[in-house]
Each structure stands twice: as structure tokens, then as C-alpha cells.
């Protein structure tokens, strides 16, 4: 084959240098099919060639960890032989182009990652980012993404129990759609994505292979540009019904000794699933493409090997036991075909019509990519913006107005417009429904349950991506703590722009370092994750957006307190760190303009101690309600506690506000590490005792009761007005037809 032209290489997302690197390692010129396979596996999406070096900072150590990164999903031990398996993944580019199907197939993909481990999916969550809802195109995209997420989860019968949504003009061109799945499996049924045993047959099961999604992996590894529409086939239509049957069949087989290894066909289709399974097992695989069931006539080997048709799985089965395995798929009316076998040579050998059409050594295909180290530098304007004072003098609103505006901001408001479109109860195990700080899924036959949350960095990440990533972890831990849960482990999705832009690379480096620090400090092993780069449109990158998913355990799923106040006369306590911190805050976002000022302080040690103390108070049921302060600060959190409990409150804050600030920082500052708890009047002593034993600041700030949410001397709003503002934030913006 002649040396491919630069245009051909670009099509495969390979550089000239990478091409030469391939030729050197192979000792020959690869043919077109081989080049396509190399391009797909060496893409950022599959190889992590840019981020891998950074990700090694994340520790996956911990006595609870059973499987860390590197498999389809991470696994932690819940005791008594039960394991929990989870992962988060992005589907940003496909969702930007076809929001319903892009989001739906994102959910489909993450489900497959979890049941590929033999685990039954028990919960889904989604983290979403869009531009402003004042823009009709963004409303449309948002509505369609929610429809797509719901469509897949609702059809397949896995509850979507939580999520996180943020609107900011910075995501106008690139929406983010991250989906997380949590599953359960008993230890003996845990599966691995590995090929073993020379002579063992390789099966392809599920959907037929079509021309859709060819080059999806490379598609996710380049910027969206005006020509993106031309790569349309990269968007696929999912079939949740087929996946449901596939899931049941795979779970039925999970306990069987006939099954050696199981892997889903994700990005780069058959190429990556076979290559990775064989590589893990130190063997090779020979595939006969004539045995692959196709949806269309006339497909070339290239198309078959690189198709990303959804709802397919690859199995390695013990020799001689193919029929019993196929019987299970037959019963579910699913297609299953023997398409190859395990071989001793560490190669992927592809034959078609009796001819060998590709033959690639796995060390080259899987690990032979060139690691990339793009230059990074901190942009000068970030330095300037960091030291600028956050605007407070220019706030044109009274404190009451600002308060109500914040409550009605779609970022703080009631998210039920979203989650009422998701079946969040199927399975009969969701005991804390969406709408709270975290969701809880009970474990059958046990007293304990899983608490799950996803959280992301917001605007302060633009100023300080390291801090931003830490704030995301801290917030996730706080959300679990509010329910009395002990965080077990973390998964993450790193959504960034084009790493060849120096400031983006800097953001990525900083964010990963921040994530690593926070996880170390809070003793949270990172067991799985995903990187999504190139979230750019026309030269503008998204803000650095690390999203973390954390799974924790609540010892008793009965009587978990909510955020809402419970009874008039109860005492309100503010526990944890300092307030202030308007830099990068939601208030600043409402004012428009640049992100300025130092982002909120974060004391990870204090964060850890506060979490311990609050967990104890919640577990002992001393706290009758618990909620953390996040977007919109103390004032928004207080109003939420009131609205949720349909009770007013009177709160006094010690520090007197200074003139230009007027109390804005005190009310709406987003300082980290703070919780609002309420206790019965007689429990104040226990409250203070636990906090002082844990060296956690704790202030009695007020009492529950009345029809007002009042911060004495500063601002007061009627309970009903607060409730209405919160309710209309998203639902109000989405009134009227969205097609």
C-alpha cells in the first residue's frame, strides 16, 4: 500500500509521526484495514495517550477495592460477599449532534460496561451541562437529552436515581452528557473482560453489525467543527429493548463456568473489544469476518471491524460448551455467532472470504501508541482574574431580590422537571428518591444501602482548576454525608477542551492533580473513570469540567433524615467552614460578565473532620434534617431546608456586613465544608459535644418556625415566594412546546 496522504491520515486521526511509528514497530507498511484499526485504538478515546500519564496520580488503593481502573468498571466490596460495580462515561459529541439518540446510547454504553462485569445494574445517574435556557436552541437540546436519557433507562428498567445539571453560556456549543451506572454482583459471579485458553471460541452476540458509528472513537477524539454533520453515521439509534434481553442473558450466564470472559463492543467496536480482551489474557484472537451477522449487504472488512453498532457483546467461552451458552441467547431471541477463537500468538488476525486481511501484534495495537505530552501553560488572564475582587458593589438587586433570583436560577432550582421524566423507582429499591442531596438504593436482605451522588466543578474551575476539582470531590462527600453515608470510592469523568491548546492542557494537569489530592485526603480510592477531550466548538473550549460520582454506604436505610426542617422550635446549626467566597459563584454568574476573584477556600482536613462529625450526628439520628451549602451559599441552602419542610426559620449571623458587600458574601458566598442541621431543642448539647470532639466549628444560628425565611437584620422572604421561585426555575423556563 502506498503511503497514505495527510488527508487520509487525518480521517483516521493519525499523525504522520504516528504512522511512521506504526511502520517502524510493524516492520512493514500496514494495509488500509490495519491502519483503520490502529487509528481507532490509538485515538485519544481508546488509548488515553494524552491523559494516561496524568491519571497515574490517582490512587485506587484501599481495603475495599476489588477491581480498580483498567476493566470495564471499578468494583468495591460491600461485605458478606456482595460487590458494587460502577463507572461514569461521557457521550458529549453524539449528544451535541443528535441529542435524543446520543444521550440514549450513552446510557446504553455505560449499562453494558456494568453488566459486562456480571453485575446487575441497579442505578443510573446523569451529569448534564447546557447553555442558558433563555436560548430556544438550548432548551430544545436540554429537553431532548433528558428525553434520551430517560428513554433508555425507562425502557430497560434500571432506575435513574439522581444527577446533576448546570446551565452556563460556556456550554452553548458543547453540551456535556455524562452517565453513571452502579451495579451489584456477588463475588463468584464477577466477570472479567479477558480472553484465555487457546482454542476457546469467541462469540459475538446481540445486534447485527451495521455501517453506523464507523469511526466513533476518532470522532470523539477530534473537535466538533462545521463539517461534523458529514460524519453523521457516527450517531446511532439505540435499541434498549435488545439491550434489556442482552443484559438478562449475560447475567444468566454470569455464574456459569462456561463463560471465560465478557466484554462489550464499545468505541472501535470489534477491534477494541477483541484486542483488549486478548491483551489482558496475554493471548491472541483470530476472527473470521464471514461469521459476523450484518445488517446490510456489501459491508467491507473495514466497516465490519470498525462498526460501532450498539448492543453487541463479545464472549470467550470454554471449548465444547458453546451450545449451552447459545441456548441462553436463543431463549432471549438473540443472535449469537462463533466468530473466532483464542490463539497463542499475541496477535489479532482477521480473515475474510478465506483470506487473511489483517494481522496486527497486540503489543503494537493496544500499547504501541505514542504518548503525547502537549505543552501547557497557565494563561495570563487567569492570574489577573484570580486576584481581582469579585464584583459586589455592582449588584443592582436588594438582598431579597438576589435571594429569590438565586432560588429561581435553574442551577439551584428544583430539578423535578428532569427526574420526573426518569423512572427512578423501578426495582422497588430506591428508598431515597431524587431531589435530595444523594439517592439511596437499599440492598435486599440487609439493613444497609448504597448512597450515590454525582457532582461537578462549576465556574470557579476556570479560575483555579485544581481547586475546582477538589471542590467537586468535597461536594460529593458532603452530599453523601448529609444522608449519613460513608463514602466508599469514586469514579470520574474529565470533560475538557482541546489539549493541544496550552491553557487546556494546564487545566487538565491542574484538575487531575487536584482530584488526586482531594481523593487522597478524603481517603477515596478512584476505581474507574473516563476522559472526554476536544469539547470545543469554533475555537472555544468548555470550562474545565471534572465530574465525580461517589458511592457510599448508609448503615441503616430506615429513617434517613432529609434536607427539610421537621418541626417548629427545632434548633438550626451551621456546621463546618467559613462562608464568604463570591469568586466564581452563582451570584456572579447571574450578574453576567467574567468569572473573577479567588474561588472559595477549601480546607480538605476540615472537610474530612466535618464529614465525620455530621455523619455521626445523622447516623445517631440526632440531626432531624441535614443539608449542605453549595450553589447560592447559606441563604439558598436555608431556603431549601424551609421549602422542603414547609416551615419558616429565623437565623442570626454573627459577623456584621461591611458596606460594599452588604452581606452578599455572608448570604451567598460559596465557601466549602458547610452543613445546615436541625435538632430537637433537647439535642443541642449532643450536637455541640460531637462537633467539639471532632474539632469542627459549630454555631447555633437559629430556630425553625414561622412563615418567613429570615436572616435577621439582612433579609427575609416569604416561604411561599421561596417555594415558587424554586419550583419555576427549570419548569418555568421549559414551558411551552419543545418538539
Amino acid at each position: 500500500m502506498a503511503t497514505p496522504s495527510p488527508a487520509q491520515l487525518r480521517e483516521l486521526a493519525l499523525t504522520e509521526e504516528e504512522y511512521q511509528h506504526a511502520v517502524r514497530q510493524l516492520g512493514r507498511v500496514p494495509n488500509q484495514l490495519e491502519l483503520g484499526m490502529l487509528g481507532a485504538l490509538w485515538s485519544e478515546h481508546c488509548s488515553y495517550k494524552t491523559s494516561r500519564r496524568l491519571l497515574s496520580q490517582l490512587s485506587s488503593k484501599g481495603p475495599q477495592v476489588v477491581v480498580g481502573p483498567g476493566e470495564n468498571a471499578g468494583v468495591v466490596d460491600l461485605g458478606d460477599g456482595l460487590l458494587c460495580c460502577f463507572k461514569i462515561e461521557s457521550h458529549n459529541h453524539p449528544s451535541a449532534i443528535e441529542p435524543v439518540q446520543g444521550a440514549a446510547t450513552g446510557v446504553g454504553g455505560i449499562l453494558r460496561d456494568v453488566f459486562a462485569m456480571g453485575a446487575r445494574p441497579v442505578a443510573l445517574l446523569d451529569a448534564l451541562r447546557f447553555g442558558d435556557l433563555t436560548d430556544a436552541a438550548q432548551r430544545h437540546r436540554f429537553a431532548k437529552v433528558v428525553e434520551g436519557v430517560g428513554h433508555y433507562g425507562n425502557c430497560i428498567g434500571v432506575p435513574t436515581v439522581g444527577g446533576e445539571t448546570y446551565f452556563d453560556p460556556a456550554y452553548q456549543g458543547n453540551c456535556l452528557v455524562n452517565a453513571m451506572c452502579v451495579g451489584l454482583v456477588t463475588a463468584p459471579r464477577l466477570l472479567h473482560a479477558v480472553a484465555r485458553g487457546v482454542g476457546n471460541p469467541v462469540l459475538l452476540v446481540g445486534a447485527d453489525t451495521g455501517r453506523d458509528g464507523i469511526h466513533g472513537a476518532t470522532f470523539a477524539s477530534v473537535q466538533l467543527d462545521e463539517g461534523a454533520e458529514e460524519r453523521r453515521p457516527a450517531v446511532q439509534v439505540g435499541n434498549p429493548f435488545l439491550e434489556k434481553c442482552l443484559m438478562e442473558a449475560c447475567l444468566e450466564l454470569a455464574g456459569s463456568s462456561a463463560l471465560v470472559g465478557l466484554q462489550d463492543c464499545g468505541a472501535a467496536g470489534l477491534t477494541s473489544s477483541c484486542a483488549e480482551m486478548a491483551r489482558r489474557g496475554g493471548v491472541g484472537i483470530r476472527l473470521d469476518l464471514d461469521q459476523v451477522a450484518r445488517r446490510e449487504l456489501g459491508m467491507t472488512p473495514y466497516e465490519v471491524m470498525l462498526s460501532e453498532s450498539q448492543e453487541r457483546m463479545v464472549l470467550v467461552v470454554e471449548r465444547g460448551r458453546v451450545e449451552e451458552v447459545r441456548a441462553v441467547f436463543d431463549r432471549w431471541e438473540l443472535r449469537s455467532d462463533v466468530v473466532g477463537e483464542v490463539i497463542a500468538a499475541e496477535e489479532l488476525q482477521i480473515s475474510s472470504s478465506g483470506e487473511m486481511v489483517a494481522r496486527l501484534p497486540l503489543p503494537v495495537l493496544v500499547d504501541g501508541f505514542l504518548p503525547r505530552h502537549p505543552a501547557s501553560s497557565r494563561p495570563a488572564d487567569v492570574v489577573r482574574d484570580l486576584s481581582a475582587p469579585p464584583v459586589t458593589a455592582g449588584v443592582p438587586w436588594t438582598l431579597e431580590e438576589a435571594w429569590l433570583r438565586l432560588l429561581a436560577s435553574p442551577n439551584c432550582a428544583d430539578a423535578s422537571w428532569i427526574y420526573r421524566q426518569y423512572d427512578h423507582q423501578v426495582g422497588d429499591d430506591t428508598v431515597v428518591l431524587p431531589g435530595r442531596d444523594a439517592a439511596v438504593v437499599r440492598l435486599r436482605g440487609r439493613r444497609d444501602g448504597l448512597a450515590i451522588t454525582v457532582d461537578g466543578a462549576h465556574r470557579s474551575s476556570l479560575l483555579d482548576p485544581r481547586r475546582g476539582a477538589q471542590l467537586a470531590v468535597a461536594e460529593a462527600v458532603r452530599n453523601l454525608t448529609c444522608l449519613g453515608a460513608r463514602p466508599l470510592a469514586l469514579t470520574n469523568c474529565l470533560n475538557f477542551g482541546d489539549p493541544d491548546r496550552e491553557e487546556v492542557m494546564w487545566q487538565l494537569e491542574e484538575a487531575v492533580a487536584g482530584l488526586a489530592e482531594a481523593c487522597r485526603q478524603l481517603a477515596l480510592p478512584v476505581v474507574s473513570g473516563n476522559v472526554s477531550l476536544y469539547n470545543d466548538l469554533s475555537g472555544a473550549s468548555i470550562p474545565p469540567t471534572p465530574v465525580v460520582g461517589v458511592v457510599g454506604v448508609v448503615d441503616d436505610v430506615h429513617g434517613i433524615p432529609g434536607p427539610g426542617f421537621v418541626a417548629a422550635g427545632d434548633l438550626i446549626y451551621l456546621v463546618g467552614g467559613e462562608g464568604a467566597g463570591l469568586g466564581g459563584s452563582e451570584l456572579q454568574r447571574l450578574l453576567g460578565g467574567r468569572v473573577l476573584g479567588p474561588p472559595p477556600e477549601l480546607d480538605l482536613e476540615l472537610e474530612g473532620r466535618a464529614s465525620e462529625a455530621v455523619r455521626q450526628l445523622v447516623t445517631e439520628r440526632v440531626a432531624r434534617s441535614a443539608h449542605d451549602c453549595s450553589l447560592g451559599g447559606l441563604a439558598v441552602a436555608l431556603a431549601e431546608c424551609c421549602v422542603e419542610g414547609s416551615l419558616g426559620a429565623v437565623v442570626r449571623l454573627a459577623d456584621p456586613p461591611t458596606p460594599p458587600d452588604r452581606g452578599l458574601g455572608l448570604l451567598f458566598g460559596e465557601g466549602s465544608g458547610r452543613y445546615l442541621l436541625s435538632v430537637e431543642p433537647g439535642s443541642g448539647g449532643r450536637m455541640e459535644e460531637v462537633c467539639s470532639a471532632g474539632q469542627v466549628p459549630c454555631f447555633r444560628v437559629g430556630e425553625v418556625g414561622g412563615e418567613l425565611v429570615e436572616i435577621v437584620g439582612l433579609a427575609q422572604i416569604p416561604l411561599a415566594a421561596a417555594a415558587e421561585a424554586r419550583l419555576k426555575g427549570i419548569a418555568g423556563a421549559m414551558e411551552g412546546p419543545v418538539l
Partner: protein
Amino acid sequence: MTWRCGIAVFPGTWSERDCAHWVELAGGEPVMLWHAERQLKGADLVILPGGFAHGDYLRTGAIARFAPLMDAVRDHALAGGPVLGICNGFQILCEAQLLPGALLRNSCLQFRCQSTHLRVEATRGPFLAGLEAGRILEMPISHGEGRYYAPPEQLLELEAHGQVALRYCGPAGELGDEYNPNGSLQHIAGVMNREGNVLGMMPHPERACEPLLGSEDGLHLLRAALALVGAS
């Protein structure tokens, strides 16, 4: 003696396990019935659970109603045996013409998963016999196509024969569009056949069977039926 509750499983069904849990809590014995089989394995009572049988492609329940199992369900129903269709099961019963009417896309054009109040309208038949008329039950719904429709003459007939079993209502039993989550005609949440032995409903009683899940009201329906089966 325990009562056998057959639970139909089609490819795409997803609340069979929830139903089994509910049956057990109510004191019955769940038996899974695979769609390709032709007999009910001695079930006294048949539940068609929620889900997306055959993907609900084309129309909800359109393909499922031709399953071999449905012949056995039909025989059982025509012989007066109790049959309960929940959500997708209700849609299948309508397609199979064991219940009148059809279920259309929610008028809000969105899927809805939320808690609803239901007013008991009829107190006949195995599932509602134990309840007083006007009683309010709380149960979640979870569907995209639950808008009950029947042609005008048929609707009149349904009302005349007391076949409207449950209606969506407010917490105090009041009717209003704000309490109707899907635009169903006459706020209908559940209907039964003329004889009363076949009941179809969109809300999920099996999700309201424990205080921990927010409501126990779903147990009433099954306990009534199990008492009846046990007595006969």
C-alpha cells in the same frame, strides 16, 4: 395454603421482580410465566406486570398480545379467573381486547414518574372488593403512554356498568386536570371488564407495598384478591 400468583414475563418486562416481592409481602407465592409457554402453572391469579414488552415498538402491547401465554391468560380470564394488568400489562390487556379502550401517549408528551392519588370508583371484582368507594390510595406512576381513551359511546357504557375502577385525583379525592398526569379521559387510571375479574391500571401498586417505599396502599389490592382466591 398459599396462593399462586402467576407473573407474566415477556422480553422487555421489567417489573416482574417487583411484583414477586409485592406478592410475597401480601402472602402469596409468585410463579414466573414465560411468554412463550402455553400454560399458567396452576396460577390462581395472573399479573401482567410493567415494562416494555417487545420494546413496545409499533404500539405498546401490540406485539406482546400475540404471545402463546396470552392464549392461556385469555382462557383464564374468560373463565372468570382474576387477571391484573399493571402499566404495560394494562396496555397489553387493551390490545388483546380483554379490556376496552386504548392507551395513548401522555398529553404532556413526556414520560412521567411521580406519586399520584387514586380514588376507588368501583368496589367489585377480586382486587377492589375489600375497599370502600371513594377511598384514596397513593401510588406512583411510571409511563409515557398512559392516556386512557375509549370511543365516546364506549366510555358511556363503561361508566354505566361501573367499569371505571380508579381515577386520578387530588389528596382529598377531588378531580382536576392538575391531578391528571397523562390526559386520560374522565381521569381514568384503571378500568375493568364487565364481570370485574380483569382489572387494568396504569399506576404501580407493587411500588407501594412498604412504608420504606413511601406507601403501603398497593397491598390492599392483592390482599383482597388473595383472600378471595383462598376462600374459594
